[in-house]
Protein backbone atom coordinates (compact mmCIF):
# COMPACT_ATOMS: atom_id res chain seq x y z
CA UNK A 1 0.00 0.00 0.00
CA UNK A 2 1.26 3.44 -0.85
CA UNK A 3 2.56 5.30 2.18
CA UNK A 4 1.03 8.57 1.11
CA UNK A 5 -2.57 7.59 1.91
CA UNK A 6 -2.31 7.46 5.68
CA UNK A 7 0.17 10.34 5.67
CA UNK A 8 -2.15 12.57 3.69
CA UNK A 9 -5.01 11.54 5.96
CA UNK A 10 -2.92 12.58 8.95
CA UNK A 11 -2.04 15.89 7.30
CA UNK A 12 -5.73 16.51 6.65
CA UNK A 13 -6.67 15.75 10.25
CA UNK A 14 -3.91 18.01 11.50
CA UNK A 15 -4.89 20.92 9.28
CA UNK A 16 -8.54 20.57 10.20
CA UNK A 17 -7.45 20.59 13.83
CA UNK A 18 -5.47 23.76 13.21
CA UNK A 19 -8.49 25.39 11.63
CA UNK A 20 -10.70 24.43 14.57
CA UNK A 21 -8.10 25.55 17.07
CA UNK A 22 -7.95 28.99 15.50
CA UNK A 23 -11.52 29.60 14.48
CA UNK A 24 -13.78 28.36 17.27
CA UNK A 25 -14.41 30.28 20.47
CA UNK A 26 -15.97 27.51 22.56
CA UNK A 27 -13.14 26.22 24.77
CA UNK A 28 -14.32 22.60 24.66
CA UNK A 29 -14.29 22.74 20.87
CA UNK A 30 -10.74 24.00 21.01
CA UNK A 31 -9.85 20.98 23.12
CA UNK A 32 -11.53 18.72 20.55
CA UNK A 33 -9.45 20.32 17.81
CA UNK A 34 -6.32 19.61 19.81
CA UNK A 35 -7.45 15.98 20.09
CA UNK A 36 -7.76 15.88 16.30
CA UNK A 37 -4.19 17.14 15.97
CA UNK A 38 -2.97 14.53 18.44
CA UNK A 39 -4.80 11.82 16.53
CA UNK A 40 -3.02 12.99 13.38
CA UNK A 41 0.28 12.60 15.17
CA UNK A 42 -0.56 9.04 16.24
CA UNK A 43 -1.49 8.17 12.68
CA UNK A 44 1.87 9.50 11.55
CA UNK A 45 3.72 7.52 14.22
CA UNK A 46 2.01 4.26 13.31
CA UNK A 47 2.55 4.88 9.60
CA UNK A 48 6.25 5.54 10.01
CA UNK A 49 6.51 2.40 12.11
CA UNK A 50 4.81 0.49 9.30
CA UNK A 51 7.31 1.95 6.82
CA UNK A 52 10.39 1.31 8.95
CA UNK A 53 9.15 -1.86 10.66
CA UNK A 54 11.50 -1.92 13.65
CA UNK A 55 11.50 -4.80 16.11
CA UNK A 56 10.78 -2.68 19.17
CA UNK A 57 7.52 -1.42 17.62
CA UNK A 58 8.62 2.09 18.56
CA UNK A 59 5.93 3.84 16.52
CA UNK A 60 3.09 1.85 18.02
CA UNK A 61 4.39 2.28 21.57
CA UNK A 62 4.78 6.00 21.04
CA UNK A 63 1.27 6.16 19.63
CA UNK A 64 0.07 4.65 22.90
CA UNK A 65 2.13 7.18 24.84
CA UNK A 66 0.65 10.05 22.86
CA UNK A 67 -2.80 8.69 23.63
CA UNK A 68 -2.03 8.70 27.35
CA UNK A 69 -0.66 12.24 27.14
CA UNK A 70 -3.81 13.23 25.28
CA UNK A 71 -5.97 11.79 28.03
CA UNK A 72 -3.97 13.63 30.68
CA UNK A 73 -4.19 16.84 28.68
CA UNK A 74 -7.97 16.52 28.35
CA UNK A 75 -8.28 16.01 32.09
CA UNK A 76 -6.21 19.04 33.02
CA UNK A 77 -7.70 21.10 30.19
CA UNK A 78 -11.24 20.43 31.27
CA UNK A 79 -10.31 21.26 34.86
CA UNK A 80 -8.99 24.62 33.68
CA UNK A 81 -12.15 25.21 31.65
CA UNK A 82 -14.26 24.49 34.73
CA UNK A 83 -12.21 26.98 36.71
CA UNK A 84 -12.57 29.66 34.02
CA UNK A 85 -16.26 28.96 33.86
CA UNK A 86 -16.61 29.33 37.60
CA UNK A 87 -14.77 32.62 37.65
CA UNK A 88 -16.04 34.23 34.48
CA UNK A 89 -19.35 32.46 33.84
CA UNK A 90 -18.23 31.82 30.28
CA UNK A 91 -16.43 29.12 28.34
CA UNK A 92 -15.53 31.36 25.44
CA UNK A 93 -11.82 31.22 25.00
CA UNK A 94 -11.52 34.87 23.98
CA UNK A 95 -13.14 35.91 27.25
CA UNK A 96 -10.10 34.59 29.11
CA UNK A 97 -7.91 37.44 27.98
CA UNK A 98 -6.61 38.78 31.25
CA UNK A 99 -3.16 38.97 29.67
CA UNK A 100 -4.15 41.62 27.17
CA UNK A 101 -2.40 44.95 26.81
Amino acid at each position, binding site marked *: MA*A*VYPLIFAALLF*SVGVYGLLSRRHAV*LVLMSIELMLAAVTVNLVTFWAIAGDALLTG*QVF*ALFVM*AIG*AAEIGVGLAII*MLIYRNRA*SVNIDDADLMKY
Partner: protein
Amino acid sequence: MSVPEVVMLATGVVGGAAALLVVTSRNVVHSALYLVVALLAVAGVFLVLGAEFVAWAQVLVYVGAVVVLLLFGLMLTRAPIGPTGQGNELGKAMPLAVALAVFAGLVALIVTSYGGEVIALEHVPPAALGEVLYVAWALPFMTLGFLLTLALIGAVVIARREEGEGPLPEPDPDEPEAAEASPPDSSSWPQRQPEPTPDEREVSA
Protein backbone atom coordinates in the same frame (compact mmCIF):
# COMPACT_ATOMS: atom_id res chain seq x y z
CA MET B 1 -6.09 -0.97 -6.24
CA SER B 2 -5.79 -3.48 -3.46
CA VAL B 3 -8.35 -4.12 -0.74
CA PRO B 4 -6.38 -2.37 2.04
CA GLU B 5 -6.04 0.68 -0.14
CA VAL B 6 -9.77 0.82 -0.77
CA VAL B 7 -10.51 0.45 2.94
CA MET B 8 -7.89 3.08 3.72
CA LEU B 9 -9.39 5.51 1.23
CA ALA B 10 -12.89 4.92 2.55
CA THR B 11 -11.94 5.44 6.20
CA GLY B 12 -9.84 8.41 5.21
CA VAL B 13 -12.71 10.09 3.41
CA VAL B 14 -15.15 9.35 6.22
CA GLY B 15 -12.67 10.48 8.89
CA GLY B 16 -11.71 13.62 7.06
CA ALA B 17 -15.33 14.58 6.49
CA ALA B 18 -16.17 13.92 10.14
CA ALA B 19 -13.18 16.00 11.26
CA LEU B 20 -14.36 18.87 9.07
CA LEU B 21 -17.80 18.61 10.61
CA VAL B 22 -16.27 18.66 14.11
CA VAL B 23 -14.79 22.09 13.56
CA THR B 24 -17.59 23.56 11.49
CA SER B 25 -20.70 22.23 13.23
CA ARG B 26 -22.72 24.92 14.96
CA ASN B 27 -23.86 22.62 17.73
CA VAL B 28 -21.14 21.67 20.22
CA VAL B 29 -22.72 18.34 21.11
CA HIS B 30 -22.87 17.44 17.43
CA SER B 31 -19.18 18.29 17.21
CA ALA B 32 -18.44 15.85 19.99
CA LEU B 33 -20.40 13.12 18.19
CA TYR B 34 -18.59 13.82 14.90
CA LEU B 35 -15.36 13.59 16.86
CA VAL B 36 -16.35 10.01 17.72
CA VAL B 37 -16.66 9.20 14.02
CA ALA B 38 -13.34 10.86 13.18
CA LEU B 39 -11.51 8.99 15.94
CA LEU B 40 -13.12 5.70 14.94
CA ALA B 41 -11.82 6.34 11.43
CA VAL B 42 -8.35 6.84 12.89
CA ALA B 43 -8.75 3.48 14.65
CA GLY B 44 -9.72 1.99 11.30
CA VAL B 45 -6.52 3.33 9.76
CA PHE B 46 -4.55 1.70 12.57
CA LEU B 47 -6.26 -1.61 11.87
CA VAL B 48 -5.41 -1.42 8.19
CA LEU B 49 -1.80 -0.63 9.06
CA GLY B 50 -1.69 -3.72 11.31
CA ALA B 51 -1.46 -1.98 14.66
CA GLU B 52 -4.30 -3.91 16.21
CA PHE B 53 -3.76 -3.07 19.86
CA VAL B 54 -3.30 0.63 19.17
CA ALA B 55 -6.59 0.60 17.28
CA TRP B 56 -8.51 -0.91 20.16
CA ALA B 57 -6.78 1.37 22.64
CA GLN B 58 -7.82 4.29 20.45
CA VAL B 59 -11.43 3.14 20.56
CA LEU B 60 -11.35 2.58 24.32
CA VAL B 61 -9.43 5.65 25.35
CA TYR B 62 -10.78 8.23 22.96
CA VAL B 63 -14.26 7.09 22.08
CA GLY B 64 -14.90 5.48 25.44
CA ALA B 65 -13.29 7.94 27.80
CA VAL B 66 -12.17 11.21 26.27
CA VAL B 67 -15.36 12.01 24.40
CA VAL B 68 -17.46 11.09 27.42
CA LEU B 69 -15.26 13.37 29.49
CA LEU B 70 -15.75 16.16 26.97
CA LEU B 71 -19.51 15.69 27.09
CA PHE B 72 -19.37 15.84 30.87
CA GLY B 73 -17.37 19.03 30.58
CA LEU B 74 -20.07 20.49 28.32
CA MET B 75 -22.74 19.43 30.76
CA LEU B 76 -21.00 20.68 33.89
CA THR B 77 -20.13 24.09 32.51
CA ARG B 78 -23.80 24.48 31.55
CA ALA B 79 -22.46 26.20 28.51
CA PRO B 80 -24.79 26.95 25.65
CA ILE B 81 -25.26 23.45 24.30
CA GLY B 82 -27.31 24.52 21.35
CA PRO B 83 -25.93 26.36 18.34
CA THR B 84 -23.09 28.62 19.34
CA GLY B 85 -23.45 30.89 16.36
CA GLN B 86 -20.62 33.22 15.74
CA GLY B 87 -16.96 32.30 15.61
CA ASN B 88 -14.30 34.15 17.50
CA GLU B 89 -12.67 37.50 16.97
CA LEU B 90 -10.29 36.11 14.39
CA GLY B 91 -13.04 35.47 11.90
CA LYS B 92 -12.69 32.66 9.41
CA ALA B 93 -10.26 33.86 6.80
CA MET B 94 -7.09 33.87 8.88
CA PRO B 95 -7.59 30.38 10.38
CA LEU B 96 -8.50 29.04 6.97
CA ALA B 97 -5.38 30.55 5.43
CA VAL B 98 -3.13 29.13 8.14
CA ALA B 99 -4.76 25.70 7.98
CA LEU B 100 -4.48 25.58 4.21
CA ALA B 101 -0.85 26.65 4.37
CA VAL B 102 -0.11 23.91 6.90
CA PHE B 103 -1.91 21.35 4.77
CA ALA B 104 -0.17 22.44 1.60
CA GLY B 105 3.20 22.38 3.29
CA LEU B 106 2.63 18.92 4.75
CA VAL B 107 1.33 17.47 1.49
CA ALA B 108 4.26 18.87 -0.44
CA LEU B 109 6.64 17.40 2.13
CA ILE B 110 4.92 14.00 2.11
CA VAL B 111 4.74 13.72 -1.65
CA THR B 112 8.35 14.69 -2.18
CA SER B 113 9.69 12.48 0.61
CA TYR B 114 7.40 9.43 0.60
CA GLY B 115 5.84 9.64 -2.84
CA GLY B 116 7.09 6.30 -4.04
CA GLU B 117 7.23 4.55 -0.67
CA VAL B 118 5.20 1.34 -0.35
CA ILE B 119 4.23 -0.17 2.98
CA ALA B 120 4.50 -3.92 3.40
CA LEU B 121 1.51 -4.51 5.65
CA GLU B 122 2.18 -6.69 8.66
CA HIS B 123 -0.22 -7.58 11.41
CA VAL B 124 1.07 -7.23 14.98
CA PRO B 125 -1.06 -9.15 17.49
CA PRO B 126 -1.61 -7.48 20.89
CA ALA B 127 0.48 -10.17 22.59
CA ALA B 128 3.55 -9.15 20.59
CA LEU B 129 3.05 -5.50 21.47
CA GLY B 130 2.54 -6.45 25.12
CA GLU B 131 5.82 -8.32 25.23
CA VAL B 132 7.70 -5.32 23.87
CA LEU B 133 5.77 -2.82 25.96
CA TYR B 134 6.36 -4.55 29.28
CA VAL B 135 9.95 -5.53 28.64
CA ALA B 136 11.84 -3.01 26.54
CA TRP B 137 9.50 -0.13 27.33
CA ALA B 138 8.76 -1.04 30.94
CA LEU B 139 10.37 1.99 32.55
CA PRO B 140 8.96 4.64 30.17
CA PHE B 141 5.63 2.93 30.61
CA MET B 142 5.82 3.26 34.39
CA THR B 143 6.88 6.88 34.06
CA LEU B 144 3.79 7.44 31.94
CA GLY B 145 1.62 5.94 34.63
CA PHE B 146 3.21 8.33 37.09
CA LEU B 147 2.48 11.24 34.76
CA LEU B 148 -1.17 10.21 34.54
CA THR B 149 -1.39 10.12 38.33
CA LEU B 150 0.08 13.59 38.52
CA ALA B 151 -2.36 14.85 35.88
CA LEU B 152 -5.20 13.35 37.88
CA ILE B 153 -4.09 15.07 41.06
CA GLY B 154 -3.47 18.29 39.16
CA ALA B 155 -6.92 18.22 37.59
CA VAL B 156 -8.51 17.68 41.01
CA VAL B 157 -6.51 20.49 42.56
CA ILE B 158 -7.29 22.91 39.75
CA ALA B 159 -11.00 22.19 39.58
CA ARG B 160 -11.50 22.03 43.35
CA ARG B 161 -13.72 24.74 44.74
CA GLU B 162 -11.66 26.86 47.10
CA GLU B 163 -12.92 28.27 50.35
CA GLY B 164 -14.63 31.58 49.76
CA GLU B 165 -15.25 30.93 46.13
CA GLY B 166 -18.81 31.67 45.27
CA PRO B 167 -21.42 29.15 44.22
CA LEU B 168 -22.02 28.61 40.56
CA PRO B 169 -23.90 31.53 39.11
CA GLU B 170 -27.45 30.41 38.53
CA PRO B 171 -28.57 31.35 35.04
CA ASP B 172 -31.93 33.02 35.41
CA PRO B 173 -34.28 32.03 32.57
CA ASP B 174 -36.05 35.40 32.75
CA GLU B 175 -32.90 37.41 32.44
CA PRO B 176 -30.57 36.11 29.78
CA GLU B 177 -27.89 38.53 30.96
CA ALA B 178 -27.76 36.87 34.38
CA ALA B 179 -25.44 34.22 33.03
CA GLU B 180 -22.98 36.93 32.18
CA ALA B 181 -23.19 38.59 35.59
CA SER B 182 -20.25 38.14 37.90
CA PRO B 183 -20.34 35.43 40.59
CA PRO B 184 -20.73 36.91 44.11
CA ASP B 185 -17.10 37.12 45.10
CA SER B 186 -14.81 36.09 42.33
CA SER B 187 -12.38 38.74 43.45
CA SER B 188 -9.38 36.61 42.57
CA TRP B 189 -10.20 36.93 38.93
CA PRO B 190 -12.01 40.17 38.26
CA GLN B 191 -14.57 40.39 35.57
CA ARG B 192 -13.71 42.13 32.40
CA GLN B 193 -14.64 45.73 32.75
CA PRO B 194 -16.30 47.45 29.84
CA GLU B 195 -13.54 49.61 28.55
CA PRO B 196 -13.22 52.11 25.73
CA THR B 197 -12.05 50.72 22.45
CA PRO B 198 -8.59 51.80 21.41
CA ASP B 199 -10.08 54.29 19.02
CA GLU B 200 -12.16 55.96 21.68
CA ARG B 201 -9.14 56.25 23.90
CA GLU B 202 -7.15 57.71 21.15
CA VAL B 203 -9.80 60.35 20.65
CA SER B 204 -10.02 61.14 24.33
CA ALA B 205 -6.26 61.36 24.55
